[in-house]
């Protein structure tokens, strides 16, 4: 029982982390109709900025806030310098250009920080496990990821649904030309949306950094998962991304946790241990395939254009 609770928390934590990455991606893809493969590079940059700023300031929280601001600015600068010129082009051009950006960022990081990667150590108050229930311990840091991600999700919901900026974003998403004709500065709006998406990716990267390590190309594998999530959730839908991310996180973690034991009941020990990791990593793609067949627009599609 305790095992199940702990594994559910593990899945939830992984899912929420994926949500931060997918939210930015779905905003940019859904609202700006822009395919950004370099989203994973922004995730990586968030982690590198955090490792650097935490090293300089000596404070984890301060370093994280500075890193967040730096990724936001980087996102805005990137949009302003490069991506702005690609909005009118078709998706293939965007894919090519942003793939080029991945290579650019990887080599830039190699030049600045070297090939070996960085460590981002946690302060001691985040490395001690917390007792949730008698007998159920959970790493404090993973718990803090859950809390931060939930807060960000709530904030994002409030901003998009309840504020004037959010209204403009939704207006720009449903009809770009009409919103522009009504006197809204669409260019500025898109720059802000892209910056927000970049900051969310940076937040995911810097929060993941102490668990994993800060490394070149760290955003590439996880970006695939983020794309799977926005396809399952419905492109452009933050609510869809939120639910799909938690779903994917849970399926992935629970699959890894319980599939080997289930398989051992039908297969021999060695075959089960080999097949289980392969099978559990397939589950989410299986889910995506089913969603694409049954509901090609995703589980929770954004409002129609």
């Amino acid at each position, binding site marked *: 029982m305790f095992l199940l609770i702990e594994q559910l928390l593990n899945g939830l934590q992984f899912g929420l982390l994926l949500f931060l990455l997918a939210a930015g991606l779905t905003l940019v893809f859904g609202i700006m109709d822009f395919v950004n493969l370099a989203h994973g590079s922004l995730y990586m940059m968030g982690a590198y900025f955090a490792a650097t700023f935490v090293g300089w300031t000596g404070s984890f929280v301060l370093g994280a806030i500075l890193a967040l601001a730096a990724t936001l600015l980087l996102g805005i600068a990137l949009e302003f310098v490069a991506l702005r010129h690609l909005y009118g082009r078709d998706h293939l051009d965007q894919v090519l250009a942003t793939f080029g950006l991945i290579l650019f960022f990887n080599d830039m990081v190699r030049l600045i920080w070297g090939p070996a990667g960085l*460590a981002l150590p946690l302060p001691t108050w*985040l490395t001690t496990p917390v007792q949730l229930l008698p007998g159920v311990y959970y790493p404090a840091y993973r718990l803090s990821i859950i809390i931060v991600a939930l807060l960000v999700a709530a904030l994002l919901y409030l901003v998009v649904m309840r504020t004037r900026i959010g209204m403009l974003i939704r207006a720009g998403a449903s009809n770009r030309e009409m919103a522009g004709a009504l006197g809204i500065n669409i260019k500025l709006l898109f720059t802000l949306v892209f910056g927000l998406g970049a900051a969310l990716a940076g937040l995911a990267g810097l929060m993941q950094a*102490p*668990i994993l390590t800060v490394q070149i190309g760290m955003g590439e594998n996880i970006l695939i998962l983020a794309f799977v999530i926005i396809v399952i959730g419905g492109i452009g839908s933050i609510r869809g991304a939120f639910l799909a991310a938690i779903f994917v996180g849970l399926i992935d973690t629970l699959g890894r946790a319980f599939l*080997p034991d289930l398989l051992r009941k039908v297969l021999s020990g060695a075959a089960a*241990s080999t097949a289980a990791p*392969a099978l559990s990593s397939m589950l989410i793609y299986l889910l995506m395939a089913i969603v694409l067949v049954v509901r090609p627009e995703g589980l929770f599609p954004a409002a129609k254009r």
Partner: protein
Amino acid sequence: MKTSFWLAGVTALALAQPALAADTIKIGFVSTFSGPTAVIGNDMRNSFELALDHLGRKMDGKPVEVIYEDDQQKPDIGKQKTEKLVQSDKVDFIVGYIWSNVLLASLKTAVDSKTFLISANAGPSQLAGELCSPYVFSTSWQNDQTPAAMGLYMNQKGVKSVFLIGPNYAAGKDMLAGVKSTFKGEVVGEEYTVWPSQLDFSAELTKARNSKAESIFVFYPGAAGVQFLNQYVQAGIKQQIPLYTAFTIDELSLPLQKENALGIPGAQEWVNDLPNEENKRFVADYRKKYANLRPTYYGAQAYDAAQLINSAVVAVKSDLTKKDAMKAEMEKANFKSLRGPFKYGNNHIPIQNFYLQDVVKDADGQLSLKTVATIVENDQDRFHDKCPMK
């Protein structure tokens, strides 16, 4: 008349010489030079280059040409690169291979062309057993040997039960099988993770804690070792269940693992402080040539591979067509290995000592690895009976 006779003689000599001896010694080197594990490939290349420096960049007086190829840690790419080296570059030797799955995919190409292949790291059980070949030598170990030594150490410590975690690929399976081959206690759980994409081990760590095992054993080479230790410490398991490792803590991962690695034992056939003269020179020159870097066992094995090749080239006086003589020479392991002298088994895998290593702060205040004890002497892998070569 006399002059033309002389000329004919000189021409005959000049023609005869190159037919026997190679002008240059061509070596192909397959390792990982891109992606997160490129640091390992770089260390191997650095050490191989240092070995060539120590040999005066020549073997038997002939210049050495090394062609480095990046396998991207992928078996299919490794196979392609091996084919390229054998078929279009026509190299005399192929060295390298960090990853067992990459080596297994590349093996046939080298063996079929009768090109000598020296594995400077990967040691899949198949290579020591049924797939052993006269043209393949190892300057490392068979995968099971190092974890098997760790299993022996755990017996010495009186550990009663263990939870095993490792990556789901050829070497991962060998490693966990290796511990099980010597560990006398109970194996309460065995988990394999997706390799190399899975970096989050929360589900496995949760299971390990809940299994009530007395100890955990892991094999996570490269960056995955850093990630595993981070998560092991953050989950508070370090205070609850001691960790035993093979190939998880080394001089490349240590700068990132930092204090997390303190007190966690590992087994290894080479440690930077082994007291023989060659090793002292290697470590000192490496740190002089590559500032801020420290050599690892990967590098030491690559260094030994260069020395092994050199011994064969010298023995046949650069006549690289004499494959049998070269094989016979290499079987003697007639060079000064950085780990100290060792013998080759019938399957061309070293019979060697394994040491217990611990993480300590060295004189510069930096974390470093130190030999604590010899766990096992002259250990031979347990697959050599399956090798048809006698």
